[in-house]
């Protein structure tokens, strides 16, 4: 039994105080007794009590009045009224004034024990809830984003503007720019923050699987569907649905998704029952959706539904002034995670980081710092500890376009990982399907 839980028994009858004290002491509770309101208030000023068992009828200040005074001192204590004279009016009044419960003497021993246990459980849950809410609010603070550059300040302003609304947001930007972080910041600063944000990586799942992932399925809907399963749409009820790589959704699922967005209703795969959902949509893409619409691979109506408020995340090369602060942040983060005593980046290494164009954006920068932290032996990071290619390619190839940079970077990562697609996709922080698409797009030949 948890001996830290405490009960204050307030009753003018000595016999009642003694009986209750004995009963609860055997359960290992810490017990305090008070014979009247004045005595109880004195005890409450000295320390906190988890549960207060309070007699309603007492000479002088009665239990009802005392309960109001208790609330001024301690809002958390669970008050349980005990009375010998039950009346519906008193019970209603007691509960309305914020009491946890109301019981009449004599009490069934089982009822009394459970009542106190439930009061303690509810008090613990409520305390935990407050802590979690505080934690969530802290966790999603926009201030935690690193970036002082004017372009990023504009992004922060947009997050602050759109977050409290229920507007659909489309986040656009290259791979590795932190689109998911921005989605989480929007969710975390919205009225939906205490509900889940459910991420669907649309690029990572084949057609049939994505449908089942989004809508869920009924038992027997298809071979292998042995159990009913809730889809991400249902799981996001009350919260936010984050559709990452939204440009990769197949045409059939686009149509189904459009219907859900319009009606906020859907049925599971293989089911007929309509399920109502309430969620906000945030989506992200690095694809040219306008081009996909004109080519017919992305539905125009869905495009307009999703593209209500756009946030364009600039690539790292367009906000080089942010690189030192971001790099320092990753050094601190890795040092903590690895337990290493590396605290800074040497001026030479920092010059190298600033002059590089970072086609893989912040994600690539994080990988570079992580690698340097692994091999680093001194208290700061030096140029030789950074990935070789940084030194080789600190300047963009003459006339090199973004696509050319991406092409080169992907080739290099594939070579470094001996064409292991999963590992290369991990390093690039993209899904395998996207990597295959890019290999095909740039016609990168697989070595024989």
């Amino acid at each position, binding site marked *: *039994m948890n*001996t830290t839980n405490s009960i204050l028994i307030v009753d003018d*009858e000595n*016999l*009642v105080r*003694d*009986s*209750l004290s*004995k*009963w609860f*002491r*055997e*359960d*290992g509770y810490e017990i305090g007794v008070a014979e009247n309101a004045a005595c109880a208030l004195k005890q409450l000023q000295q320390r906190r009590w988890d549960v207060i068992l309070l007699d309603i009828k007492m000479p002088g200040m009665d239990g009802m009045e005392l309960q109001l005074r208790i609330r001024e001192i301690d809002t958390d204590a669970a008050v349980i009224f*005990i009375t010998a004279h039950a009346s519906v009016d008193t019970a209603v009044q007691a509960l309305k004034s914020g009491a946890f419960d109301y019981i009449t*003497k*004599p*009490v*069934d*021993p*089982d009822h*009394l*024990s459970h009542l106190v246990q439930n009061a303690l459980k509810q008090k613990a849950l409520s305390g935990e809830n407050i802590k979690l809410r505080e934690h969530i609010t802290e966790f999603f603070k926009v201030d935690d984003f690193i970036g002082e550059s004017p372009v990023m300040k504009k992004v922060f302003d947009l997050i602050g503007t759109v977050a409290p609304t229920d507007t659909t947001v489309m986040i656009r930007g290259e791979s590795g720019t932190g689109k998911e972080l921005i989605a989480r910041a929007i969710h975390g600063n919205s009225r939906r923050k205490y509900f889940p944000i459910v991420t669907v990586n649309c690029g990572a799942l084949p057609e049939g699987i994505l449908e089942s992932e989004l809508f869920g399925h009924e038992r027997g809907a298809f071979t292998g569907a042995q159990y009913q399963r809730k889809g991400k749409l249902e799981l996001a009820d009350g919260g936010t649905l984050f559709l990452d790589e939204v440009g990769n959704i197949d045409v059939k699922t686009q149509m189904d998704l459009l219907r859900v967005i319009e009606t906020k209703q859907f049925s599971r795969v293989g089911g007929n029952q309509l399920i109502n959902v309430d969620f906000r949509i945030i989506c992200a893409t690095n694809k040219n959706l306008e081009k996909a619409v004109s080519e017919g691979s992305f539905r125009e109506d869905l495009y307009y539904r999703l593209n209500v408020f756009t946030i364009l995340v600039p690539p790292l090369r367009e906000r080089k002034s942010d690189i030192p602060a971001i790099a320092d942040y990753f050094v601190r983060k890795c040092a903590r995670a690895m337990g290493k005593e590396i605290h800074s980046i040497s001026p030479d290494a920092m010059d190298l980081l600033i002059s590089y164009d970072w086609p893989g954006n912040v994600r690539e920068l994080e990988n570079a710092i992580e690698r340097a932290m692994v091999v680093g032996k001194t208290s700061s990071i030096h140029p030789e500890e950074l990935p070789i290619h940084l030194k080789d390619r600190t300047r963009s190839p003459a006339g090199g376009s973004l696509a050319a940079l991406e092409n080169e970077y992907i080739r290099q990562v594939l070579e470094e990982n001996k064409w292991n697609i999963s590992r290369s996709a991990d390093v690039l922080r993209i899904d395998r399907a996207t990597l295959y698409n890019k290999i095909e797009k740039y016609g990168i030949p697989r070595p024989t």
Partner: protein
Amino acid sequence: MSASINILNGSSLVRPSELERIAENIGGIYGLPVRCVHAEFDLPKAFDSSRGQYNSTLLLSGLPGIGGTPGPVGPKQIGLVDVDLFIPVLTFVFGEAQLDGEAAVVSTHRLSNQYYGLPRSHELLLVRLEKELIHELGHTFGMYHCRQFECVMRSSTYVEEIDMKKAIPCSGCTARLLELLSRH
């Protein structure tokens, strides 16, 4: 005075030979000599006519040797009665003990099947009684309630809960009991 346990038998339902058998088991658990003694209790004094029940706290304070007339004294006295017991705030109790004190009392009243309209089972009554005697005695040695499902020190507010637990303390309570006994 050397440590021992006295069972003050005021029950007409439990035969002395049956109580001796139970006493032997109790002695095995507490590692102390247990004596069964016939006793008369001042039941009218503990009777509450408004409830038709007997106040266990009053009964406890009037046990022979506990602040009253000298009787077969010993460090731990546990009274056994057949009447329905209560403490003022509760509808009933199976028994009551002084936590880390001298005495306890247990009633057979709500331990019998007949009370619940079920067929009589004397054997079951004895099993329940043994568990309750061990439980209340545990409190007199300073033991608290335990959350282990089968531990004899688990709080039982229904007779079914008594049936579910065993007549022995769990390993945690055994360790605590040994520590407490070493102080006696």
